[in-house]
């Protein structure tokens, strides 16, 4: 690294000492450095003002601040209603299908003599055809 090299050179052959001078000046003028002022560029205020305007415009008007929680609450209620309706509808539909297409109905409607066997391990009812 360039600075490591420079530092090594510096340590091998120190330049005329000057740091104490800086420290002395910092002691004498540290306060003026701390409070140093400079006239800001003329165009800075325009830029700051423009940035502030764009930030203000991107935020909703305070008059509508009440609307945000109301909308959030309404959205939550609507979501819950849709979810519950869907779940209830699906359960009802599944139950209906199961009752119509279940093995018992199928066996009853079949011409082949069949026997229902309950498989307790799988908690299912299986249909076994009985040879004529």
């Amino acid at each position, binding site marked *: 690294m360039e600075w490591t090299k420079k530092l090594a050179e510096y340590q091998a052959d120190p330049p*005329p000492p*000057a740091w104490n001078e800086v420290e002395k000046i*910092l002691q004498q003028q540290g306060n*003026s*450095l701390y*409070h140093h002022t400079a006239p800001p560029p003329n165009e800075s205020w325009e830029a700051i003002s423009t940035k502030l305007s764009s930030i203000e415009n991107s935020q909703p008007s305070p008059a509508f601040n009440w609307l945000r929680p109301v909308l959030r609450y309404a959205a939550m209620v609507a979501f819950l209603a849709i979810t519950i309706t869907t779940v209830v509808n699906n359960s009802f539909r599944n139950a209906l299908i199961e009752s119509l297409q279940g093995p018992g109905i199928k066996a009853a409607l079949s011409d082949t003599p069949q026997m229902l066997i309950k498989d307790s391990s799988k908690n299912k009812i299986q249909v076994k055809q009985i040879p004529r």
Partner: protein
Amino acid sequence: MPSNHLSNDDDLIEGCLLGNPVMQRKLYDKYAPKMYGICLRYAANTEDAKDILQDGFVKVFVNLGKFMATGSFEGWMRRIFVNTAIEHYRKKNQLYAISENQEENIPNQEVSALDELEAEDIIRLISELPNGYRTVFNLFAVEGYSHKEIATMMNISEGTSKSQYARAKAWLQEKIGNRNQDKA
């Protein structure tokens, strides 16, 4: 148009919190020269100083509601500008670290007093420092923060802060030495 009348801080803050652009401008006019002075000390060039000034003032106006009136308003603003300057260079640069050993070996010898260096000269020299060195130098030598505080502010180790400061000293010493040689 810059206003000649500079109100007191409480009135300015209240006006700015209400979004009054006249009060915002007055607050800017009152503090911009001081804050630009800080920006120049932390920046490598006037373009960077301008960017820091703009970002700093936007932060001041946006966060004005968070100012607790228990401390000095100028001190609060100053911290915002210092932090903005640190962020500015954190985005741009990596700090160069040297070992503690190297820091200890940097000589600190007696010197002949040259009283010709003014604050302006020092600021010009400071602005020429590499970014990491300049920030640490400003925070330690001018603002008076400890290396521990600087480490926290800049998200670096205390040792790195010390080494950056040591390097800044060596750099300035060399520059002033060269400057004196040129004059002689």
